[in-house]
């Protein structure tokens, strides 16, 4: 083993070498960063940039270095760095660390674009430098704006449906009541044609009334405020069954359930959901007495409920269609109803952050599955 005596360099040169090496490493990291990196000194002048910054702002780097950062970020950044009577540079900086700040930046062309910047301090030889990681969030902003617009338009549609249904009720009541009055008072007193005409008018008015009430019910799911709390889904089911009392008794239906979990949801909506699904199971029954079983399993962090019946079943080609508004698979003579029930179910489920679907076989029965509420 040779005793290699390493030549010891003078101390100052040594630490200088370290400095140069660490700076080189630092520049390397900066250069490779996926966001635009801009390093700014205490006076707000740009001292270092990376290639992303050149691309984002449209300047070659020699045009960026030495430029005031306000040329590329007109306001909101430089001010935050500046020590004023109230704050030292350290304090001014400390207030911004860690916060992603949304600002407006400007390219060489003069075009403005939204950015998010994250700041971190760097103790350089000549004082505190601030490294800003700058991200162009134009796309995110556009998506946010689209979402806001979509929500607003949904809200407007819901309100429109509510107002339209609400205001339509009044003249419809007049048509409905007076045709019924005509039927009452003149049935058999005019000729047979008149009786038939009146009967059609009465029937039409009644159907329109039901449609409007269903439309109102549907729009209310969207507009009425939700109270989301931890509730007992078992209790919701029991309430729904109580509401379906006479339908259950008349059909001889047997409803069973597994032990159902507590869920985070709007209780009234969950009751309505169970009521619609089980009501359908009873209504669209086969020759056998209806049997309905309700169960729940945990799936992907949510509770997935299943309502399984032994009724008429649904053809696969209609699995999606039945959830549409006013969509029916039978004539009015076969089954009453406006076809809004499942549309309401879907709206409730979606409003509670879940999904609903059906599997079924003709004459075997159907299973409706819906998810909602985070599994606690």
């Amino acid at each position, binding site marked *: 083993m040779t005793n290699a005596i390493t030549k010891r360099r003078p101390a100052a040169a040594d630490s200088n070498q370290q400095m140069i090496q660490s700076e080189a490493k630092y520049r390397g990291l900066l250069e490779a960063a996926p966001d635009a990196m801009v390093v700014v000194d205490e006076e707000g002048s740009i001292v270092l940039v990376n290639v992303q910054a050149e691309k984002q702002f449209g300047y070659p780097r020699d045009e960026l270095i030495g430029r005031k950062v306000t040329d590329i970020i007109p306001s909101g950044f430089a001010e935050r760095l500046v020590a004023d009577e109230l704050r030292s540079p350290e304090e001014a900086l400390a207030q911004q660390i860690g916060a992603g700040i949304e600002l407006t930046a400007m390219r060489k062309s003069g075009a403005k674009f939204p950015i998010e910047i994250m700041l971190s301090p760097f103790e350089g030889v000549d004082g505190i430098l601030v490294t800003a990681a700058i991200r162009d969030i134009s796309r995110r902003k556009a998506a946010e704006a689209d979402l806001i617009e979509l929500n607003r338009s949904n809200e407007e549609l819901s309100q429109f449906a509510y107002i339209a249904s609400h205001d339509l*009720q*009044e003249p419809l*009541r*007049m048509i*409905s*009541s*007076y045709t*019924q*009055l005509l039927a*009452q008072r003149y049935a058999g007193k005019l000729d047979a044609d008149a009786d038939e005409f009146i009967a059609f008018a009465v029937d039409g008015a*009644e159907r329109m*009334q039901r449609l409007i*009430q269903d439309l109102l019910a549907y729009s209310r799911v969207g507009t009425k405020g939700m109270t989301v709390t931890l509730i007992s889904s078992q209790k919701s089911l029991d309430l729904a069954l109580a509401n379906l009392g006479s339908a259950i008794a008349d059909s001889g239906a047997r409803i069973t359930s597994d032990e159902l979990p507590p869920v985070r949801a709007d209780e009234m909506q969950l009751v309505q959901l169970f009521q619609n699904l089980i009501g359908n199971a009873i209504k669209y029954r086969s020759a056998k007495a209806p049997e309905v079983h309700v169960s729940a399993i945990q799936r992907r962090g949510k509770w997935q409920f299943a309502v399984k019946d032994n009724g008429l079943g649904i053809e696969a080609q209609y699995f999606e269609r039945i959830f549409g508004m006013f969509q029916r698979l039978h004539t009015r003579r076969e089954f009453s109803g406006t076809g809004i029930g499942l549309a309401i179910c879907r709206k409730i489920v979606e409003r509670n952050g879940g999904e609903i679907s059906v599997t079924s076989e003709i004459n075997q029965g159907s299973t409706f599955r819906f998810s909602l509420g985070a599994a606690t």
Partner: protein
Amino acid sequence: MKNTAMGIDVLLVEDSLGDVRLTQEAFRAANSEIRLHVVMDGVEALGFLAQKGAYSDAPRPDLILLDLNLPKMNGREVLKHIRSDDGLKSIPTVILTTSDSAIDINQSYTLHANSYLSKPVHLDKFESVVRSINDFWFEKAQLPQAG
């Protein structure tokens, strides 16, 4: 029980002609002793109750049926006026309106309506409501006596 030999006067405050006629028909069928007086806005209602000017021969009603949505002065305001007038406050006043909103219902009771009825959409249910009004107020309940 109301002395029906004197007849029964009901003031209907309702702005829809269609509803007025329906109510008239329903009352006629429920109890022919009832004289239904009709005014079509809140200002006329107060004029009727004041028994002045054009209404100097108007009788004091045994029951007021009050719609909420009225032009010029809505039903809530009419109710407030009735309940703050010493001469009128004892007249049984029942809200009869299309709205079934909880806000309207609660407000009406807070303003001391005697009760609140939503007009049913079906004619036969509406006729049944009118029969109930007759049955409760004019055959079962005791009404305030004059003097």
